């Protein structure tokens, strides 16, 4: 760790401060919730790396997605991700956000999470061990040094791609777009027809 090098602090304080104070929104759904308490308690201590639990997404820096993502969970993830302030990093645990993992042919889980929100790094494993999580944190530091952890910039520049994919899976979203969209996505939305399965009662019930 180069936390004690004062020269580096004076040269680029923003990178050093973002590295060594990662406030994490522990979005614990799926299988990974069982791996978070060992990481933050006494045996494998995450607070010495500067990683601390943030009580609200408005105070947070790092977004941890632990495990598989169902379609209902994706709605909550998008709302939480859009509330976080700007330089934000996302790390995904396990093999389910990479390519579907164990649920590769399920009708209700998301296979590649990178198409819906931008992800900076993946940790392999089903679930990864706490030592793997710490190695991932140090790799994230190296990425921040080289300016390679720019998921939030990708989200801002290609927002219509992400919003189009989110609407394909979730239907019409209830919140307005975060950044202004291009004109082309409005035309596409009117032209697409979704196939409806005509059954007696299934269409009449809705939330």
């Amino acid at each position: 760790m180069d936390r004690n090098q004062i020269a580096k602090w004076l040269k680029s304080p923003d990178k050093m401060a973002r590295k060594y104070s990662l406030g994490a929104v522990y979005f614990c759904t799926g299988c990974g919730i069982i791996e978070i308490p060992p990481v933050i308690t006494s045996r494998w201590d995450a607070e010495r790396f500067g990683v601390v639990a943030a009580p609200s997404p408005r105070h947070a820096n790092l977004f941890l997605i632990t495990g598989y993502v169902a379609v209902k969970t994706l709605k909550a993830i998008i709302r939480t991700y859009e509330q976080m302030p700007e330089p934000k990093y996302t790390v995904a645990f396990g093999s389910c956000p990479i390519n579907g993992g164990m649920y590769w042919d399920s009708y209700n889980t998301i296979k590649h999470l990178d198409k819906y929100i931008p992800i900076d790094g993946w940790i392999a494993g089903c679930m990864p061990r706490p030592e793997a999580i710490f190695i991932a944190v140090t790799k994230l530091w190296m990425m921040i040094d080289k300016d390679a952890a720019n998921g939030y910039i990708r989200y801002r520049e290609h927002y219509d791609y992400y919003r189009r994919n989110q609407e394909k899976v979730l239907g019409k979203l209830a919140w307005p777009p975060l950044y202004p969209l291009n004109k082309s996505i409005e035309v596409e939305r009117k032209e697409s027809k979704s196939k409806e399965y005509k059954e007696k009662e299934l269409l009449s019930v809705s939330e």
Partner: protein
Amino acid sequence: MDNALEKEIKSKFVGIEVFIPQKDRMTIKIKKENLVDILSFLKDKEFNYLTAVTCVDWIDENEFELVYHLSSFRDPTHIMIKKRIPRENPSFTSIIPIFKNSQTYEREIHELFGIYFEGNPRLIPLFLENWKDKPPFRKDFDTREYVKETYDSIPTLEEYK
């Protein structure tokens, strides 16, 4: 205990089949009787806890089979009551007046199999979000085709650019 109960059920309702596969288990198959009568009869006989309501899709015989699981707190006995309903436009009556906790089980079966329960006030989606296809637990729903169509057809960011 089970033999006495079996004799009592057979004497009261004619034409139903009762099996005892092993100790403390009983299976009852109904063809034309009223399910509500048998459930109320068993509820008075100390079987007052509805454990679950499940469903089986017999696609070759063109029928759905609803299974009601009852158990008792006094004896360690478990009773399954099976009822077949036809597969086109499936609908059935709800047993909420007898067991109030069957509301969520019937909601789940309605969402995943497509069976309509008359009398259930809350048949809204439980797990699925924005679902526009067949009910997914039926045996003629091809999950691999659905995944290829919905999720794998989305291009990655490089292909989009």
